[in-house]
């Protein structure tokens, strides 16, 4: 075997080259800071969930001298996109739990309390602890309330027992949901998977849970003993027609029944009977496992504040904002972002990721006496898990158009491993980067 002279730079030259490369890399990693706007404004952000935290992190870099107050009584931050994985036994409950204070930048004041009253005329927020905050700008990012009481006979104590699951209720309830669902995957029987008729966060999650439990039952060799029914709230399986059709085909492939226009109104845990409101009146269905997702509404403090739409979603109370700027239509110093915003789509963390920079742009422009044409077009993303190991990366907007991030590479309506990898590996990381205001 021969050796040949390749190239002969000196060792010193090599080290110099390496040092130069390192210096270049370090310079490239630094991001150019955007110009700061000086202000003495007091900005109150209600809610330190995905939207409130991400916005706070971005505003501290854009505003110089502003007073930013976050109001949230819950100490824990919940990574809600993880709930579906917890409820399928793929992650532990702790996967979704962190501390709110882990994510907050210095220079932001956290009031560990809940809002008791919002007065948009006087521009004040009264806290349950008795303190009253005056604001110049208000960001309503409270998220939404799960109305479990609306399902007669249901209570959160039941989750995990008697074949009852409810993964939306939190990471611990998601883990309990898996306790009930895993029994179904072993023993089979009748599985009912429901969704409410109200607007809801991540309308893909009820479907994901259905697909995951179907797949786990199948892999356990027990699918023959199981009958799985998805109860849709209307005549479609998903709000975007082209996606609904795809899900219909997948249901056909997996042997999942669809019961259209079946809205859960009551359960009888003792007799294992579920009552549904249907166009033909009430209908009772028996179950061995039922997944309950209750109706979802704006928190009572928001509904009492006069900020809600008066002529839309009157039973739900979402905040009356312009669908593109997310600015309140009657109070220009008020914005709503995240689940509580009264816009046709966008109750997901992916929507928040696109909404937050828009609110930031409008707020900073307003403070600077300027304007901006930054607009949110309804972008929502749903990594629709169709089995353990595969998902469809579905992205769409207000107009029900598909808006793929990687057109021609990652097909939105194909079940792909790469889409699953994104959900499993990259999604939480992207979410966390978003919380820090970096994505």
């Amino acid at each position, binding site marked *: 075997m021969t050796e040949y*002279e390749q190239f002969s730079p000196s060792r010193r030259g090599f080290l110099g080259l390496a040092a130069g490369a390192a210096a270049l890399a370090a310079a490239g990693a630094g991001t150019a800071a955007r110009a700061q706007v000086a202000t003495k404004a007091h900005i109150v952000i209600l809610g330190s969930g995905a939207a409130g935290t991400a916005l706070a992190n971005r505003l501290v870099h854009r505003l110089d001298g502003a007073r930013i107050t976050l109001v949230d009584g819950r100490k824990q931050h919940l990574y809600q996109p993880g709930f579906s994985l917890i409820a399928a036994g793929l992650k532990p409950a702790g996967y979704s739990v962190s501390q709110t204070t882990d994510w907050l930048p210095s220079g932001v004041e956290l009031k560990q309390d809940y809002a008791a009253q919002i007065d948009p005329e006087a521009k004040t927020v009264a806290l349950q602890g008795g303190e009253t905050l005056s604001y110049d700008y208000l960001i309503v990012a409270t998220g939404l309330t799960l109305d479990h009481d609306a399902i007669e006979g249901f209570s959160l104590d039941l989750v995990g027992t008697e074949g009852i699951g409810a993964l939306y209720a939190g990471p611990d309830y998601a883990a309990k949901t898996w306790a009930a669902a895993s029994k179904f995957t072993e023993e089979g029987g009748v599985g009912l998977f429901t969704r409410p008729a109200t607007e809801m966060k991540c309308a893909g999650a009820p479907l994901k849970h259905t697909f995951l439990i179907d797949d786990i039952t199948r892999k356990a060799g027990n699918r023959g003993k199981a009958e799985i029914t998805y109860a849709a709230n209307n005549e479609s399986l998903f709000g975007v027609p082209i996606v609904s059709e795809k899900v219909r085909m997948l249901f056909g492939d997996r042997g999942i029944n669809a019961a259209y226009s079946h809205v859960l109104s009551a359960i009888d845990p003792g007799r294992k009977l579920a009552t549904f409101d249907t166009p033909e009146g009430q209908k009772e269905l028996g179950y061995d496992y039922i997944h309950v997702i209750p109706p979802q509404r704006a928190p009572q403090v928001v509904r009492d504040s006069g900020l809600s739409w008066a002529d839309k979603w009157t039973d739900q109370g979402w905040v009356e904002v312009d669908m593109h700027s997310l600015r309140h239509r009657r109070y220009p110093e008020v914005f709503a972002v995240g689940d509580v915003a009264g816009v046709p789509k966008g109750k997901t963390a992916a929507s928040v990721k696109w909404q937050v920079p828009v609110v930031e742009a409008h707020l900073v422009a307003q403070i600077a006496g300027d304007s901006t044409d930054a607009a949110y077009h309804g972008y929502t993303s749903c990594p629709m898990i169709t089995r353990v190991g595969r998902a469809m990366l579905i992205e769409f907007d207000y107009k029900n158009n598909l808006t793929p991030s990687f057109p021609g590479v990652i097909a939105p309506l194909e079940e792909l491993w790469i889409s699953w990898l994104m959900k499993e590996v990259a999604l939480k990381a992207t979410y966390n980067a978003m919380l820090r205001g970096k994505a």
Partner: protein
Amino acid sequence: MKDLTFGTLIAVFEEIFGRGLFWAMVAIAGAITLAYFYVLIRDRAVSWRKFLWAQLSMPFGAIAAVLFVQVMTHSGFRDIGGPIDVIVLLMVAVAGAIGLAILVYTLESLFLRKSRPEV
């Protein structure tokens, strides 16, 4: 994905592995790469004997990388659903193969330098 910049990617990777582990891995990968160039320059030649061993290690690196990704993500070969999935799988395999080959070559050069005369 909005604003997919280099900074965003770095932020995402920091979150995947944790900031400390990510930069430690970058440092290790960088150190191995630097050591690789160092031995190339020091020896002023590619040693084909060492390169042979490096090449022989490549399939193991490829398989190990693929299995690592599958175990970490609760998935398997049956989940390959389209062309992009095959491409991702191959990229993972190639990365594992090249990574291990560079590691093996570098370790041989650094520690087994004079153990055997070159033919």
